[in-house]
């Protein structure tokens, strides 16, 4: 039936402008969310690894809440529940905010593990050189622990990119919403799904390959 009229090329060329816009929106949301998740992960991961009172405990609660509730529920909370409390965001803000909050929780665990893997004697060496705690962190723990955390944090960023597809539920016109909306009108369902599969796999696979290249590049001298 629909298989007989399958024409991927016509679908792509007829809807090129919209699909490119959708892809750009996906990339924009991903970039905002990844940048935010990087900062949240670095700061809260450091607070956890250094057992900074209050911040450390609050971070643990934040991580458990995010890890143990579905991300769709989190999106619904931000999109439907926060307006009731007077916080109204546009779709773009909800999109990057929700995946950033999600990615930040996972990333703070990645960075905590990375910072905690830095041998204690390295930090002692920092003390011996007269560094204060902050200088030891920025000069010793961050560059070494950050590299240890890199593969797992890139995995989190890959999940962030994939999770932007969930913005379909709030109608934000990223790639998934765009492709599905076009296919709803033209009934080119298989073509739309093919485009989605190819583009997401290209994005995800490129990022996965980059992890392996980066890992080899940034491996610590002693583990090489």
């Amino acid at each position, binding site marked *: 039936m629909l298989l007989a009229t399958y024409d991927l090329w016509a679908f792509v060329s007829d809807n090129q402008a919209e699909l490119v816009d959708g892809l750009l929106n996906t990339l924009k949301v991903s970039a905002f969310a990844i940048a935010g998740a990087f900062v949240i992960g670095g700061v809260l991961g450091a607070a956890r690894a250094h057992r900074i009172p209050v911040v450390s405990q609050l971070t643990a609660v934040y991580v458990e809440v995010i890890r143990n*509730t579905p991300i*769709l529920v989190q999106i619904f909370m931000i999109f439907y*529940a926060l307006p009731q409390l007077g916080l109204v965001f546009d779709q773009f803000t909800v999109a990057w905010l929700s995946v950033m909050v999600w990615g930040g929780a996972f990333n703070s665990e990645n960075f905590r593990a990375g910072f905690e893997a830095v041998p204690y004697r390295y930090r002692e060496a920092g003390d011996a050189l007269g560094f204060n705690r902050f200088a030891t962190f920025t000069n010793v723990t961050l560059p070494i622990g950050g590299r240890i955390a890199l593969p797992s944090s890139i995995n989190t960023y890959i999940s962030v990119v*994939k999770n932007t*597809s969930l913005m379909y539920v709030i109608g934000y016109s990223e790639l*998934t919403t765009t492709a*599905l909306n076009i296919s709803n009108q033209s009934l080119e*369902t*298989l073509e739309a799904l093919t485009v989605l599969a190819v583009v997401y796999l290209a994005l995800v696979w490129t990022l996965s390959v980059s992890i392996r290249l980066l890992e080899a590049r940034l491996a610590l001298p002693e583990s090489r």
Partner: protein
Amino acid sequence: MPDWVEPVARYILQEGLPGTLRVSAAAVVGSALIGILFGTLMTIRFLPLQALIRLYVEVFRGLPILVTVFIAFFGLPSVSTRLEFDPLTAASIALVLWGSAQVAEATRGAVQSIPREQHEAASALGFGWGGRHSFVILPQALRRLLPPFVSLLVNIIQNSTLAGVIGGLEILDAGERQSERLTAIPPSGIGEIHAAEVFGGVAVLFFLISFPLTRLAAVLEKRLV
């Protein structure tokens, strides 16, 4: 407690929860069976088979699960009318495709972590490939698979909310329907917005299900490895 709470909670627990449990149970069992089979087959040194399973694993781990759900719900019926499924079944199929890819990868690692001597000892006792794997290798590998399995269960329960996106009645969808109903004018609704309470309740419900399981996964991880 206000009057509107009881019917909403009753609907979520009586209509939504069974949907979530159905999808999750089907997805966990399907993922385990297919994943363990594929993962074990991946350890056979036969390139075409390895390449084929590797492709399956990379595709379904790489795709956003929502896209896989759309493929199962909108894509399959366009290929053949016999492949038309209701939303809960379509979501279960998508979660099996995703989950089995995760399990296959974990099983491959677990099977390969069993020392070669175990294979040799089993062969010496006269076991063929099938007997060796089912009676000697897999029972040991499954022990190491237990912690990732519990994490998979948590992920599947949480991702069963994707069934709601295509109209399947599960916990989150039940909450959404109720929060929408409350905004309607009486008698069907009460003309008030209670999205924060309803979705907050849904979040608490998921937390109560997931939290013990993630703790269990962490404990198993420490004990068994």
